[in-house]
């Protein structure tokens, strides 16, 4: 048989480690916890969290997934996989049902349905992808594997027998005569449908549609009376029912382990695709990033925060995209500008793009080139913890120190409004010290701050500013643009609108 390990992993060891992965510490800061929760909602049965918690550190592994993802952009293939997944859901549902049932004929009936759904799932997928053009190593290997599996003697014999039995069961028609407490069961002998006769008599009066008086009767499942009726039917047709019994005994473990694994793992791609397709419909772009662990240049165009975008799309609000670019010797983006102007969102976006790229997934933005980092560290303004006696400033410094102790030149640091609990002078002083350390480290960093001086403190820094509308500074554009910090505070913008700035007042008052 063609060998096929996994649609997510090249390495069995990493695949096994992934099963016990925990949520990375920086998820809440980057709002990745929200986004992932949204992605996997409705897919609990597949236990996808560990996959989303396991960033890859190998370029070839990432490419393996990118190839699969690109193949899946073919709607034909996607349709086949969805159909397969739907059938597999039924396979599990029917099997789960059996444990809750009491009557032999009932259990065996549902077992047969499960096998039939399984056969449809596997054969459908094998046939469906046989003619689809594939580029990815993963799906090509799967195709080979399935082809061998569905043509194996064992599988073919099992399905042929299952279908024969189902066909025979379906063709049975029987009559139930209920009078008092007595029930008689016999074969159907072409008695006419009486409801139709009654309908026919009065149909001439019909003027239009009328109310449906059908009541919903009976739950799903089988009562003891129905079970006894089926037992009678089994006596009427003994060969068919004993064939069913033999079949069930012979195929207790009918699901192939590789098929079972694929059914789960492919949902990683489907979950993400479903999530981003809503955003794509709103006009947002996603692209497969070029990932490098040697070139230290990164950029993305028309990028955005996926968690925020997801909320905005749900509320039909517009979404602002932003670009960033760090060239050869640039490492640190310092973001300044008015509050509520999109600075934090920008910082999250930077982190998200790098994380999603390490999962081998397409990232928000039209085009992206990212660095495969060894770790992401975040430090976002947190609520003060009263149990922590060190005080806020000290706490900030302890956390920063921890980060700097572990970070390497391949790490990514995202700092958001740190040192806010001290004076501007102190904050500036401390920030400069930390920045020197980061610069020394040569790690990538996004630093959101209100300290303008930081924007030009270092050769490695790039200044970016969240902007407002020039003629109405009350309105934020949420565009974060690469430009020097202008040093003008928000209040001055408002003064300008009322023509009360220094120059304006001079102009208005003739000298």
């Amino acid at each position, binding site marked *: 048989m063609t060998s096929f390990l996994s649609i997510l992993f090249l390495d069995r060891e990493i695949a096994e480690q992934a099963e016990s992965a925990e949520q990375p510490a920086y998820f809440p800061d980057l709002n990745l916890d929200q986004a992932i929760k949204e992605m996997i909602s409705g897919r609990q049965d597949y236990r996808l969290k560990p996959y989303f918690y396991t960033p890859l550190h190998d370029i070839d592994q990432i490419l393996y997934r990118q190839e699969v993802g690109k193949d899946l952009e073919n709607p034909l293939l996607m349709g086949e996989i969805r159909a397969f997944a739907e059938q597999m859901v039924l396979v599990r549902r029917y099997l789960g049902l059996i444990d809750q049932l009491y009557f032999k004929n009932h259990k065996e009936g549902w077992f047969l349905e499960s096998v039939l759904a399984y056969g449809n799932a596997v054969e459908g997928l094998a046939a469906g992808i046989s003619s689809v053009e594939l580029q990815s190593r993963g799906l090509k290997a799967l195709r080979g594997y399935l082809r061998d599996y569905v043509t194996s003697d064992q599988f073919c014999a099992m399905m042929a027998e299952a279908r024969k039995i189902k066909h025979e069961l*379906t063709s049975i028609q029987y009559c139930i005569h209920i009078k008092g407490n007595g029930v008689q069961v016999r074969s159907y002998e072409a008695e006419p449908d009486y409801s139709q006769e009654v309908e026919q008599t009065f149909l001439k009066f019909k003027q239009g549609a009328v109310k449906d008086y059908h009541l919903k009767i009976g739950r*799903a499942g089988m009562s003891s009376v129905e079970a006894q*009726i*089926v037992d009678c039917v089994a006596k009427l047709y003994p060969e068919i029912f004993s064939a069913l019994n033999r079949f069930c005994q012979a195929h207790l473990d009918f699901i192939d382990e590789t098929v079972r694994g694929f059914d789960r793992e492919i949902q990683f791609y489907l979950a993400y695709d479903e999530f981003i397709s809503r955003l794509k419909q709103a006009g947002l772009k996603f692209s497969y990033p070029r990932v490098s662990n040697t070139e230290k240049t990164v950029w993305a165009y028309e990028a955005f925060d996926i968690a925020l975008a997801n909320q905005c799309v749900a509320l039909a609000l517009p979404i602002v995209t932003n670009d960033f670019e760090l060239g050869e010797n640039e490492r640190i983006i310092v973001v300044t500008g008015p509050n509520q102007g999109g600075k934090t969102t920008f910082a999250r976006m930077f982190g998200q793009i790098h994380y999603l790229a390490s999962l081998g997934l397409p990232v928000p933005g039209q085009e992206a080139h990212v660095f495969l980092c060894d770790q992401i560290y975040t430090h976002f303004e947190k609520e003060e913890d009263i149990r922590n006696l060190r005080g806020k400033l000290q706490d900030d410094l302890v956390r920063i120190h921890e980060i700097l102790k572990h970070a390497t030149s391949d790490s990514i640091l995202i700092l958001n409004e740190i040192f806010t609990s001290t004076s501007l002078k102190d904050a500036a002083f401390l920030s400069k010290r930390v920045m020197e350390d980061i610069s020394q480290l040569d790690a990538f960093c996004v630093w959101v701050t209100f300290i303008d001086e930081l924007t030009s403190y270092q050769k490695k820094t790039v200044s970016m500013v969240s902007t407002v509308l020039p003629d109405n500074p009350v309105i934020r554009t949420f565009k974060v643009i690469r430009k020097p910090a202008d040093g003008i505070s928000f209040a001055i913008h408002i003064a300008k609108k009322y023509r009360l700035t220094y120059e304006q007042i001079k102009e208005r008052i003739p000298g």
Partner: protein
Amino acid sequence: MKAYLMYPDRDLDLEQPLPFNEEDLVQDLELTTLWNAMARGDKFLYRVAKYAILTGLKNPEEIGYRQEILQDCLSHPEVIREMYQIPIEAMENKRKNWMGIFTYHPSGILSSSIEMMEMFLDELRKLRRIAEEHASTFASRGFRAFFEMIQKELDDSFFLEAIEHLKALKFRQGVLLGARLGMGNEGKDYVLLKMPEKKRRSVSDIVLRKKPVYSFHISEWDDAGARALSELKDRGINLVANALAQSADHVDSFFRMLQTELAFYIGCLNLYEKLKEMGCQVAFPSPAPMTERKHSFRGLYDVCLALTMKQKVVGNDGRGDGKELVIITGANQGGKSTLLRGIGLAQLMMECGMFVPADEFSANVCAHLFTHFKRKEDASMKSGKLDEELNRMSDIVNHLIPHSIVLFNESFASTNEREGSEIGRQITSAFLDRHIKVFFVTHFYEFAHNFYIQRDERFLFLRAERKSGGKRTFKLIEGEPLSTSFGEDIYSTVFGNTSPAPELATQESAT
């Protein structure tokens, strides 16, 4: 089964949309007065009268079809009223005894449907008796076809079959169900089967029977089993209960349809009797096709004015054949508005197949009838008066199509004569070019004069007559527009310099 008493090929639809200018028509032509006379306090008659009159016929053939039926009604009022009582009685009985079929048990649905159907059958017998007794004395195509249909569809074999069903549905022989095995070997596709004819069964029959029968009993103290069994029985009964309940609804809807179709003629009878009692003349009009231009009448009066005053009112004559524009000028309170309303009412009554309030009346049918009457000041003060008028005009233009009729009553009088005349001139001229017939009541001399001097054969000028000494006759005569509206006369009437005729005083309050 269809009555086809309103249209030769369809039912009167009380759900169809009313013309967009329904409210204007009701207000301007005082249609509620007409409908109240037709309804005599009956809400249903009112509703049908309203629908019939607002959704008139555009084909003289179809109008003729209704006129014939209405003539039959006028010559057999007692038969029509007796027949109208049948659906009323059926629905009264239903309302009193059933409040509609709703219960949560199929056997409950079935038994109330059986009783209801028995009651309906009694009413249907009455209908057939009327058809048998009176069919030969009716002359219209509509009634001849209707009675023929009743005799054919409600023949003896129908009643026999219906009674047979109602007996069988009491299930003295138990319930016979047919079923198949569905998913999980659960019974599905339950149908209620017709019990085979009961034959005396000899011992040899049982021995010779090829197919085996298996049976079991639910023991007396097996409550769950008994419930399950009755639930199963209900599945079968459910189907036939639905069939019979829907059948009852079909009969019910047949009665409703019959009531609706007859209601219009009952309304006409009511109005006819009322006008006769007041000594007012009515005539069946001759409708001409939409593309022709006809409007000739003798003794045309405003039926709503007569109904309000509870007496005969002055009628007018007009020779408007070939005319596209009729401008009515002359003395204030000289009967101009009354004539305009009379023309509108007669048009609607003619088009719905009724008689009209005149000695003689012929006119072409129109695509749509629109009214643009002067309104009181807008209480909300949202827009100026001319704004309001032009806004309404613009709404009308949105819906105008060729061969419509527009009735203007003192339009654009909220501005001065020069401007109002110019607006009126431009609108009217455009309408004429689009083959829209215009009746324009105005005191704008400039407007009327402008059209008069064109000496166009398509134009007709009517003037409120004024005898020397200021006395009005409420008769309109053909003649050149005069340059004053005799406001002085009104002034002196109000301030009591001349003693007005008693007849005049009452008419003032009504116009």
